[in-house]
């Protein structure tokens, strides 16, 4: 199964995906700066489509997506592709991470666009720290859903 964690920006989804794979701890670190780099650094600020982080012990591919949009639209769009192209809807699972609108992430993106790198970085780090809990919750939910579907997980 392809598991897609999606958030408004890319960091939260990557956090959840990394936690699912055991690459990040569920407990927030004291210093989020190294975590930001492990989550992709500046590159993760770019919306770059689906980013597959790896495969979990049950063989599921774990991906992250910065959707920059509404979660319901994201779900419908992926479902639409599955319908049009005959992709088995049981072969993928979407899990939303964090709030619908992540103001810190938006602020960081805006600051980066304006060239205010220092502010953008502070907001990003703040966002990484703030989204740790929601990301851990999403990763746990993702694993539970997989277990309920009989696809492994915990």
């Amino acid at each position, binding site marked *: 199964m*392809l598991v897609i964690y999606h958030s408004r920006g890319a960091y939260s989804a990557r956090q959840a995906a990394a936690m699912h794979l055991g690459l990040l701890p569920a407990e927030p670190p004291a210093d989020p700066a190294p975590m930001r780099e492990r989550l992709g650094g500046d590159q993760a600020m770019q919306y770059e*489509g689906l980013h597959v982080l790896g495969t979990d012990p049950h063989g599921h591919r774990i991906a992250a997506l910065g*959707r920059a949009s509404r979660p319901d639209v994201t*779900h*419908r*769009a992926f479902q*639409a592709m599955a319908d*049009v*192209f005959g992709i088995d809807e049981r072969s993928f699972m979407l899990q939303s991470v964090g709030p619908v609108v992540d103001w810190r992430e938006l602020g960081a993106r805006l600051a980066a666009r304006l060239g205010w790198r220092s502010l953008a970085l502070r907001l990003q780090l703040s966002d990484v720290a703030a989204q740790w809990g929601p990301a851990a919750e999403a990763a746990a939910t993702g694993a539970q859903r997989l277990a309920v579907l009989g696809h492994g997980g915990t």
Partner: protein
Amino acid sequence: MRIFYFCYGSAHSSITAANLHLGVMPLGRRARVSEIIHQPMFDRAENYQIGQAILMGTDEQANEIYALGLAGSQHPMAHALRDFLELNGVDTGQVLFADALQNAGLSMRIGGFSSRRLGLIFPGRQICAFGVWQKYPKFVALVRRIRTGLGLPSP
């Protein structure tokens, strides 16, 4: 091939582009505002339908033409959907995502918002259709580019 003209809400830009591609709307001249308003599926999609792919028809080469609303993140989502298809073994050489929203002007956005979000259907639809009329050459240019790339005639 499957061609997805995408925009915000699959109500105006993508619908117009798809109808142009299919020959429902004229490519050789600027359509009248009344024609724009009465084209199939114009200003019809509801909020809960954004994200659904609307099959508008098939062209002369039997390519399937869709209108697709992706809300606020058209390009990232189009990118992600293409990635999703690739990960599922779909030949993405047979898939095209075309940005119809780039042609939308202020009138279209105001009219579309008024109709679809505020429920002011009559004035909103008129304003939006006028906006499409204003930007009609741009929609024609987009569709001509797509059709030419497919080897289809563009009158």
